[in-house]
Each structure stands twice: as structure tokens, then as C-alpha cells.
């Protein structure tokens, strides 16, 4: 036993985090599970830019100006940096409530609503708050066992509550939330500029070269040009449109989630309480405001008795660190859904059967 303790590597907290995320570089990188489309994004950007630098830039740098590849390189590096930052950072995940806290909240809820008889669906758990003269409802998340802060939402793909949840973007392979929204916005903005730039200079290249050797010859000499123009053309419509949409959201200090749900528009005339009323102020807050650090503490080290006793499983929480809570009421072990309630909006899709989990306070 002592040999095992000495040889066992430290277990870091990311290995035990619940939710459907992938972690790389010993917890430094955090992404969603499905990364296929992210690799496609990388491939398209890298591929198109490689072709551009290899063929068109050489000709244009000589014929027109060497500044052309320089600006292209700067745009390319900036968009890659912001893409990687968006994809690899914590979007603002709210850690799940530990059992003590969950029990405390459950007791408070029962005190407010009264105890629910067994077998009946409990009433939806909502708290009302007044923010800037608007009533904002806080919903209770059954998975994370917390009352979600305003503007937070539960991402069913990553199975986490995310602060200021915007949307889950498969192209960057991560959720877009409070902590990485500005990187996401700068990414789509720089990608739009890069696409327009590459598209424009491809046209210029084809035009210049066609004057000398003819259009068909030009295409035969650098067939990559056709590919680049096609990719840029389709990217332009989608990415530039998306940039415009997000510029609109930033100016009004709204999230995609709120826009889709129509939280601040229409019938009730409920105004957005988070907007400063001034476009410049809104932009400054969203893009240049203070950046909160991640509260997940992915690289924290778990104590030895926690790490040595069971095999690491991504579905477990570090709940066994805490002592028994004094009076758990409707006690649910982490990641289990209550059988007799169903709020389809908040619940993650049913998961495949998992191996039996050890839970220290299992009292059902």
C-alpha cells in the first residue's frame, strides 16, 4: 500500500470534474467533447492561408508591395490566437454545488414552498429578484443543484451551467460565455477581415496576372486560387453576417441566448436591465471590461486519500472531501436526476448506464 502511495502521481481536480468536457495539457486546456468541427475550422483557416502565402503573396509582394503579406500575417496570427483562446479557455463554468450547499438550498426551497408528498412533481423552482426596476427570475438547475445567476444558462452539450451563456459553438469546439465572449467576438471580427483581405487580393492577383498571361493560364498556374476564392466566398457570407449580428448584440449588451428567447423584446416591454443605454459603454464593458478568472481550479491537487482510493472517473465530484451534512433531506447523489420530476429545458439528455459510483454520503 505504501508503495502505491509513493508511486502514484498527483490527481488534479480536472480529472474529477463533472460535465462533458475534455481537458488537455494536464488541465490547462478545456474544450467540449466533440471537436471534429473545430479541427475543420483550423484546417480551413490554415489551409487557405498557407496557399495564400505560398502562391499569391509571392507575386503580389514583388508586383505591388511587401506590406501585403505582412498585414495578412498579422491578421492570420491574431485570428489564430483568438480562436485558440476561445476554444481552450473556460467559458465561465459555474461549479456544481457540493452536497452541503445543495441540501441547504433544498431546505430553503421546502421552507418556502412547503414539503411535496412523495411521487408528486415538485413545483418549478424559481426565485424572483429585482434588478434595476425589472423583475428577473432565477431558475433552479436540477443538474448543478444551484439557482442560476441571471444570464447564466445550462449547456446541454457540455452539461455545465455557464455564466452569461451566449451559445455553444461547434466551430470553436466550446461554449461561448462570460470569460471567452470577447475572444470569440475578436476571432470572428479578425476572421472576417482576413477573409475579405484574402478574397480581395486573390481577385487582384488574378486580375494582374491575367493581364500578362491570360485568365485561363493564370488559373492553370495557381489552381489553389480557385479553391481560396471559393472558400472565402462562402466564409464571407456566414462569418461577416455573424460578426454583424454579434456587433449588434454587443452594442445592446445582449447574449445570443437572450436574443433567441426574446427575453428583452416584445409583449411585456421588459427592458434589458444590463444595458447601460449607451452603445459605447456597452461595447467597452463587453469587450474591455474586467476579466474574471476561472473558478474551476482545474489544476488544483486533490488530497491523497481522495486520489488513491478510487479510479479517476470524469463523472465524479470531489464531494467526498466534505463531512456528512447534518440533515440531508431529499438527498440525490451527484449527476443523478430526480426520477419523479421532469423539466425538459434544464435536464441534460439521459446518459448511458455508468459503472457503479461510490458516493460517500449515499443515503437515498
Amino acid at each position, binding site marked *: 500500500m505504501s508503495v502505491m502511495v509513493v508511486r502514484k502521481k498527483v490527481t488534479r481536480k480536472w480529472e474529477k470534474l463533472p460535465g462533458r468536457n475534455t481537458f488537455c495539457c494536464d488541465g490547462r486546456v478545456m474544450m467540449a467533447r466533440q471537436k471534429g468541427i473545430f479541427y475543420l475550422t483550423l484546417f480551413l483557416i490554415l489551409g487557405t492561408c498557407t496557399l495564400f502565402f505560398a502562391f499569391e503573396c509571392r507575386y503580389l509582394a514583388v508586383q505591388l508591395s511587401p506590406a501585403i503579406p505582412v498585414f495578412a500575417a498579422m491578421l492570420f*496570427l*491574431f485570428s489564430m*490566437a*483568438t480562436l485558440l*483562446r476561445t476554444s481552450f479557455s473556460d467559458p465561465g463554468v*459555474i*461549479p456544481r*454545488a*457540493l452536497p*452541503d*450547499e445543495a441540501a*441547504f*438550498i433544498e431546505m430553503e426551497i421546502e421552507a418556502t414552498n412547503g414539503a411535496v408528498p412523495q411521487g408528486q412533481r415538485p413545483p418549478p423552482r424559481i426565485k424572483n*429578484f*429585482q*434588478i*434595476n426596476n425589472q423583475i*428577473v427570475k*432565477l431558475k433552479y438547475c436540477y443538474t448543478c443543484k*444551484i*439557482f442560476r*445567476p*441571471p*444570464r447564466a444558462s445550462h449547456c446541454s452539450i457540455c452539461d455545465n451551467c455557464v*455564466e*452569461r451563456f451566449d451559445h455553444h459553438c461547434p466551430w470553436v469546439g466550446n461554449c461561448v460565455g462570460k470569460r471567452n465572449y*470577447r*475572444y470569440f467576438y*475578436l476571432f470572428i471580427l479578425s476572421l472576417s477581415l482576413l477573409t475579405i483581405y484574402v478574397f480581395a487580393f486573390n481577385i487582384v492577383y488574378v486580375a494582374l496576372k491575367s493581364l500578362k498571361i491570360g485568365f485561363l493560364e493564370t488559373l492553370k498556374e495557381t489552381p489553389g486560387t480557385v479553391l481560396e476564392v471559393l472558400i472565402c466566398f462562402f466564409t464571407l457570407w456566414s462569418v461577416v453576417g455573424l460578426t454583424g449580428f454579434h456587433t449588434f448584440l454587443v452594442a445592446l449588451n445582449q447574449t445570443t441566448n437572450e436574443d433567441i428567447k426574446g427575453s428583452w423584446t416584445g409583449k411585456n416591454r421588459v427592458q434589458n*436591465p*444590463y444595458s447601460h443605454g449607451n452603445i459605447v459603454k456597452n461595447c*467597452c*464593458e463587453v*469587450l*474591455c*471590461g*474586467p*476579466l*474574471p*478568472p476561472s*473558478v*474551476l*481550479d482545474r489544476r*488544483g491537487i486533490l*488530497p491523497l486519500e481522495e486520489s488513491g482510493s478510487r479510479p479517476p472517473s470524469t463523472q465524479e465530484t470531489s464531494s467526498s*472531501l*466534505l*463531512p*456528512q*451534512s*447534518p*440533515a440531508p433531506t431529499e438527498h440525490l447523489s451527484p449527476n443523478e436526476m430526480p426520477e419523479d420530476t421532469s423539466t425538459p429545458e434544464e435536464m441534460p439528455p439521459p446518459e448511458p448506464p455508468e459503472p457503479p459510483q461510490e458516493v460517500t454520503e449515499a443515503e437515498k
Partner: protein
Amino acid sequence: MATEVHNLQELRRSASLATKVFIQRDYSDGTICQFQTKFPPELDSRIERQLFEETVKTLNSFYAEAEKIGGSSYLEGCLACATAYFIFLCMETHYEKVLKKISRYIQEQNEKIFAPRGLLLTDPVERGMRVIEISIYEDRCSSGSSSSGSSSGSGSSGGGGGAGAR
């Protein structure tokens, strides 16, 4: 400093955890991090209301300072953007600096005010900034304590107290 931390560990060894109180967030000012200053009834016999409120208000002011939107935060944001955010590899953000200040403040409060009264504050950052967790300890030596349900005192190191787990 070492002797004061030692005293906190003594507290954990000699006392058993009775219950925990969770101070929730106050969203009346928007999404900024503020905690409710409402005095929980469980602490009624343990600590003076004023001391508790003062602690929470000081914490709230620290968080407000961290999230303040003004000239310096814009400058930091623009500088970071101009360097494609590589500057954060060598520089700490203003928010992180304030969080460290908060950690030190909580440790100080625990040593001076809360531990002598058998209480322990947990840094909200260890609870995802959702709650301020206050652990209430009953002295094992005292008889007739109300801690009927609690058993494990030594396992209470999960309380943390911001004493360097990060």
C-alpha cells in the same frame, strides 16, 4: 503567522463541525458579485451582527473593486487585445490581484474574529463565487451541544478557509 495557522488547525482538531450556513448572492445590482448582508439566524448566538455585516460589506466592496469598469480596466483590456492576449502569460489581471487580497483578508478575519468564536469562513472563490460558506463548530469538550447529526470532525478540512489550497 505560522502560529496563527496552527491555531486554526487546533480549532479543527478540537471542535466538531455542527452545521454550515451559506450566504447567498445578492443580485439586486445586476450580475456583479455581491453577497447578501442579511444576518442568518444560525449565527445569532455566535457572533455580533455588526461584525458579520462589516465582514460581508468589506468583501462586497472588494468584489466591486475587482469588477469596476473604468479607465484602468479599459486600459488593461485594450493593452491585452493589442498583444493578442499574450500579455496574460506574464501579467496578472487586476481581478486576480484583488482575489488574492480577498484571500488574505478572509484568512485574517478567520484568525482574528471567526476562529475564536468557533466559526470558519470559506473563500467564495472555492465555491464558484456562489456562496460564502460559514462552518459552525461545536467544541467537543462542551456538553449538550446541538450537533446531533454530525460525526466527523477531522474530515472537515474541506472548509478550506483559503489557507493555500489554490
